[in-house]
């Protein structure tokens, strides 16, 4: 097929046959409208608009998406995406999320069923009662037994990072397997069996045996064995090994599953955007188990709603209060502090980031004095027992009762929790907030350098609608700038966008996202693990560098050629001619350079097995410059 490639491919316009009919509407709101008589900015063609919408409002196109949109109309699709509750969810996604039960648990329940190391220690020491729920109790008992065992093993002080410190040499593995209570044949299977043989061996063992086997293996091999298991067995092994890790794993896997498979794509893009805006770091203390509820309850319900609700929900979330240390901030003149001899005091961390990163922006006109005053207002916004999954609470005894002055507004003494609410109100209605939020949205969705005119237009809507995110996005989507020809593939994809758009483009069936999760770290975007409160960059150009490019290319060829653990791609998908494969991934013709390079490459390799050529071309297309942009 490759060799049938014509020297010069005809420029068949994408989707020409589908006859996309643009609906007539006012130019301000109709993305599909043909360019008016005197266009201010050259606009995309109707076909490009569909690709653009899928690039910007979704994590790229799945096979058939563009055709489906062409049929229903782009406006209708956008309207649906703006109202995700009207979109039926993809059953494939629901099936993948079903086993990840921690996603649906309250933080307290989650900690009962998946206790943290700290809680296990407390239960072992008798400082904490065992859970009452029989299932949770059994899980806790098993986890305590395991915990005690690993503590003994780690007695030489390797601590939390024990696994990393273990030696993983081949001799160690051999010796470890040799000691296992298994038959010689079983040991042989473990050492050098195929994936299927290992799976069937391990699934045949009792829980107790399975644990012994996993325990006895060196750290690196444990992961390797687990990775080869079907999802249910893998989960079981991981619960036994470290229940707390399963919580993080569920959260991270769910993000990749949702981004890849959800029909509510804009909601996923926005959940990523807003979580990143109100960033918390998964590896900071209690956020290990607070982050799940944070995304589910504080972020997701409001991603298309009022900004006020997002701000309030994050301010009152244990995850944010823990991450930015506000839960410990103590009014210097508070009753509790006076009682303990004024040993504690203010913590400015949340007060500062609330203004700099969540609302006004760094140039929003606040001073160091404002930071201190805002911190005073938020004293008492705390968490009851954060390490045990406790929730947000206002604790009047920690609150500074005095008068405060924030951005020129006097907040009278004795306001209690109302002081913080008043601050949020001041910030919400500050013009700098409307501008800052609008610009950040425009940077993510429109261009690395959105025009001041567009930002001002969005800010106007934001202000007029009391911070309505959906309306602000509609203003953006109604602008000529969003649909400007110059903005087509003008943004470099972030690692998440690249990885997920590739999975979608080849309709990958992902059973085990672990390898992808690891790759996200190599690409510079470990999920839920941005330590700094700034979150990850929305500027595409920030993501391009040689390390990232190499990692993207390796992922691309690994994915298309079926070399990634737990991810299946149907090779029959790549049976067509080269240009067909390329177009199925890019939805446009590849650039001439890319086409030529691919053709020359395969012409020079007549020895290549025919069934390998299609996947190789797909891998090259996913690794090409075109696919790195959206």
């Amino acid at each position, binding site marked *: 097929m490759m060799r049938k490639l014509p020297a010069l491919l005809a420029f068949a316009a994408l989707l020409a046959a589908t006859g996309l009919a643009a609906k007539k509407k006012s130019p301000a709101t109709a993305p599909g409208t043909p360019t008016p008589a005197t266009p201010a900015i050259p606009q995309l063609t109707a076909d490009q608009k569909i690709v653009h919408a899928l690039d910007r409002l979704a994590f790229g196109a799945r096979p058939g998406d563009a055709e489906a949109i062409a049929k229903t109309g782009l406006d209708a699709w956008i309207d649906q995406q703006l109202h995700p509750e009207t979109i039926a969810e993809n059953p494939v996604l629901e099936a993948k999320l079903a086993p990840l039960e921690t996603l649906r648990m309250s933080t307290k329940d989650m900690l009962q069923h998946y206790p943290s190391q700290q809680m296990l220690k407390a239960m072992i020491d008798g400082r904490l009662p065992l859970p009452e729920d029989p299932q949770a109790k059994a899980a806790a008992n098993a986890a305590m037994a395991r915990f005690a065992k690993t503590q003994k093993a780690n007695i030489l002080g390797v601590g939390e990072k024990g696994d990393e410190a273990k030696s993983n040499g081949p001799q160690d593995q051999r010796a470890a397997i040799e000691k296992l209570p298994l038959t010689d044949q079983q040991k042989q299977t473990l050492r050098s069996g195929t994936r299927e043989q290992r799976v069937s061996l391990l699934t045949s063992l009792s829980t107790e045996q399975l644990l012994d086997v996993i325990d006895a293996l060196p750290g690196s091999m444990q992961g390797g064995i687990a990775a080869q298991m079907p999802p249910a067995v893998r989960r079981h092994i991981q619960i036994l090994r470290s229940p707390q890790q399963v919580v993080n794993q569920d959260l991270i896997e769910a993000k990749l599953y949702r981004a890849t498979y959800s029909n509510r794509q804009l909601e996923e893009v926005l959940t990523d955007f807003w979580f990143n805006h109100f960033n918390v770091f998964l590896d900071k203390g209690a956020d290990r188990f607070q982050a799940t509820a944070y995304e589910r309850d504080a972020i997701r319900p409001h991603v298309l709603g009022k900004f006020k609700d997002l701000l309030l929900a994050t301010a009152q979330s244990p995850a944010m209060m823990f991450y930015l*240390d506000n839960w*410990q901030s*103590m009014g210097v003149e508070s009753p509790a*502090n006076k009682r303990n001899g004024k040993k504690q005091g203010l913590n400015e961390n949340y007060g500062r980031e609330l203004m700099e990163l969540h609302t006004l922006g*760094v140039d929003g006109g606040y001073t160091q004095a404002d930071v201190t005053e805002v911190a005073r207002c938020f004293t008492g916004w705390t968490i009851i027992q954060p390490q045990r999954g406790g929730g947000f609470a206002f604790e009047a005894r920690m609150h500074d009762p005095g008068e405060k002055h924030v951005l020129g507004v006097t907040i009278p003494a004795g306001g209690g929790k109302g002081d913080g609410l008043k601050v949020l109100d001041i910030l919400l209605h500050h013009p700098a907030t409307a501008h800052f939020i609008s610009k950040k949205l425009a940077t993510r969705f429109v261009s690395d350098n959105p025009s001041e005119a567009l930002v001002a237009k969005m800010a106007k809507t934001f202000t007029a609608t009391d911070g309505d995110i959906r309306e602000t996005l509609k203003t953006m989507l109604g602008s000529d700038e969003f649909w400007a020809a110059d903005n087509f593939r003008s943004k470099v994809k972030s690692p998440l966008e690249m990885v997920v758009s590739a999975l979608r483009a080849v309709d990958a069936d992902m059973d085990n996202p672990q390898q992808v999760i690891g790759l996200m770290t190599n690409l510079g975007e470990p999920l839920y693990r941005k330590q700094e*409160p700034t979150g990850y960059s929305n500027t595409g150009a920030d993501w391009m560098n040689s*390390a990232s490019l190499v990692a993207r290319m*390796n992922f691309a060829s690994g994915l298309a050629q079926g070399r990634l653990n737990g991810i299946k791609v149907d090779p029959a998908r790549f049976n067509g001619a080269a240009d067909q494969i390329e177009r199925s991934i890019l939805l446009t013709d590849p650039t001439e350079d890319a086409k030529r390079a691919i053709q020359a490459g395969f012409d020079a390799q007549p020895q290549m097995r025919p069934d390998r050529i299609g996947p190789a071309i797909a891998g090259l297309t996913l690794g090409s410059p075109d696919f*790195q942009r959206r």
Partner: protein
Amino acid sequence: MALSRRIFLRGSAVTMVGAGAAPLWLQRAALAAENTGKRKKVLVAIFQRGAADGLNIVVPHGDPSYYSLRPSIAVPRPNAAKQADTAVDLDGFFGLHPALSPLKPIWDRNQLAIVHAAGSPDPTRSHFDAQDYMESGTPGLKATADGWLNRALPPAIGKPSPVRAISLGPATPRTLRGGNSVVALDNISTFGVRDQASAEVLKSMYGGSKDALLGNTGRETFEAVALLKGIQQTPYQPASGARYPVGKFGESLKQIAQLIKADAGLEVAFADLGGWDHHVNEIGQKASVGQLANRLDEFGSSLAAFYQDMGDRMEDVVVVTMSEFGRTAKENGNRGTDHGHANAMFVMGGAVKGGKVYGDWPGLAAEQLYEKRDLALTTDFRAVLGEAVHTHLGNKTIQSVFPNYTGGPEKFRGLLRT
């Protein structure tokens, strides 16, 4: 294979070096230019992201205010009987945090200097802005497109090495962005496209791409990959029994050492280490435990391993550390510190006139503090970096490296032998 040969011959300007000084692997790489295969002066910039607490890192134990400002998180005065938990005395006034004791022998050999009360004169206490200003080298100017370390590279003579400027980690930091090509790499040994057939096609695809950003990045990447291939073939063995600690930062310094010793043409390198934003429980029950101690342990033992590994090649190297701002002189309400102003910088290398804390000490008494809360600034960080660029790299155009800085060599602290 036929493909690779063809693309290679067409796509690259092949410059064979004469057999001679260049290591064998360089001759094989066929990409060697006059800038590879010989010793270069190297500047290594280290960024401690998150605003490290300079006052608990280089402790002013001779300043009584330090102890009154920090009743629960001060590092105790040097005490030989409790070495592990007290400051390591440097000069009777300053001492190192005990977790930095691996750096003391370097100090004693006069190859480690400290500049205290140094940093950016801009008053911002935003991590993001302050890092941006320090990395661009232009405090207060947001429009600067490139970073100081990129501008610091002297004009190239002949074909520049593809690994003239590198950053360790998955991104190109602001510090290194700019007109000179930069390679970001996570790990030398895995740097490259694994699938050989694909690699050749991608190389030619990016080589011919009209996409400026992607095309350039791709071309730089494949040139660097070709050059580094030779290094990859032998596993790196640090010299003199140097042991880098487990962790990304130690790994980064190890790879920088490897590149320097391979004479691959490296001139500037960047590595960073995050996690310094200690608003809560900065110090544990003793100074030797807790969050700050953990960070410093990784920081100090990595630098010490690098020094040991480099041996006399340290003559070619200057390492400078920086962090976006310091932390409040007074501890906050949670045994931590909030965002402050001036900080401490380390300068290490064979040409460093070390064993001395440079800079004027502004004092920590209430009236001496910046905005009544932070260590005041007495040395602009550009005077420190400028001296390294000017004296070590030999780039005398300080004005173009730090465009909005009015200071010249007269501001240098005399940290380096000329």
